[in-house]
């Protein structure tokens, strides 16, 4: 019944649509929420959708993970390892950026007592 999923076009289309949905959920959160931590979480959701897109599009139906195990003996019919390695890099960088952003938000709140971006008016000319 699910044989149509073996077509790479269908499968990649589903992956792309899902990642796109997740991305725009994150974008909505970034634009509509005003709490600093919620905005940072929205950015993390957008990052996650890009990782999913990379991993999803790099794998065609029938390909295995690029690891020799479970009786595999040759590196054939395997998923592309380069996007996976790049995604690993991106996850680490995303972690670093998120940690730095959260600590900036905490420090800002500690100094001013504010978490709402709409009330950040320290540098605004009156």
């Amino acid at each position, binding site marked *: 019944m699910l044989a149509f999923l073996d077509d*790479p*076009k269908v499968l*990649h*289309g589903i992956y*792309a*649509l899902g990642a*796109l*949905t997740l991305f*725009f959920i994150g*974008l*909505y959160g970034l*634009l*509509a*929420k*005003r*709490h600093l*931590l*919620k905005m940072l979480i929205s950015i993390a959701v957008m990052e996650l959708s890009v990782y999913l897109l990379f991993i999803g599009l*790099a794998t065609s139906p029938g390909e295995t*993970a*690029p*690891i*020799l*195990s479970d009786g595999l003996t040759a*590196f*054939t019919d*395997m*998923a*592309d*390892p*380069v*996007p*996976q*390695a790049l995604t*690993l*890099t991106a*996850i*680490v*960088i995303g*972690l*670093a*950026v998120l*940690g*730095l952003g*959260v*600590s*900036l*938000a*905490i*420090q800002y*709140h*500690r*100094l001013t*007592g504010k*978490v*709402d971006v709409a009330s950040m008016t320290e540098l605004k000319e009156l």
Partner: protein
Amino acid sequence: MTAVPLRKRVRVKTLLLVLLCGWLFAAHLGVLLQYGLDGQSASVGDALLARNAETASANAVTSVVVSYRGFDTLGEVTVLFLAATGIGLFFGGHGRAESHRPEPPMSPPNEMMVTGVRLLFPVLILLGVYVVLHGHLSPGGGFQGGVIIATAFFLRMLADPAFRLRHARIGLLESLSGSGFVLMGLLGLSLAGTATFLGNFLPHPVTEMGRLLSAGVIPIIYALVGVKVGAEVAAIFGDMLERRGQQSPGLLGDESDT
């Protein structure tokens, strides 16, 4: 559920704008996706997979991360180091006296937490070390295992307020493993047999593929990366937790979203 009606909680204009963006993007994607999906005859990944046996690493992703794109990994570790330094700067500064709110005392950890962490801590450390050391054989590696080890220490810090990471020791561990990474790269560059940065100068026969001691320098470099990532992430956790007593609960508790 709050008493605020749904139309007040959802920003309609923003939602419509985002939906418009999404529709436009999806339309462009629909045009673009017709090209290149089946037409890819060869990619970098295929070439790397074809010659991956030369690294004798059973995990092709690991050989891409550590060997073919090892220089990238060095930059990535540097970014993580800079972020950890920045976070340490924010939380370890002298500005704490300027905090305008009184510090609420930290509540003692829950008994379940303490008992559970006592059970989980050695298991998590063991799992982390396993994931680091088998990075060239199975899914995992230095980054993943390092974060697992850091999580173990994070739980320990949550459960035991008297437990503190010694920053000098963490810094020493981090600099030693970082210099070890660069040293490995330079050794590969200077030895005549490889003459490339991060070249695999140790013997790595293909027949040994799949064993723990195989793939030459790849497991050594990944173990160094694991130590470095573990130390950095644990330092980030430690920096954030140590000042938790000063942090007013408003940041997590306030609901200033409208």
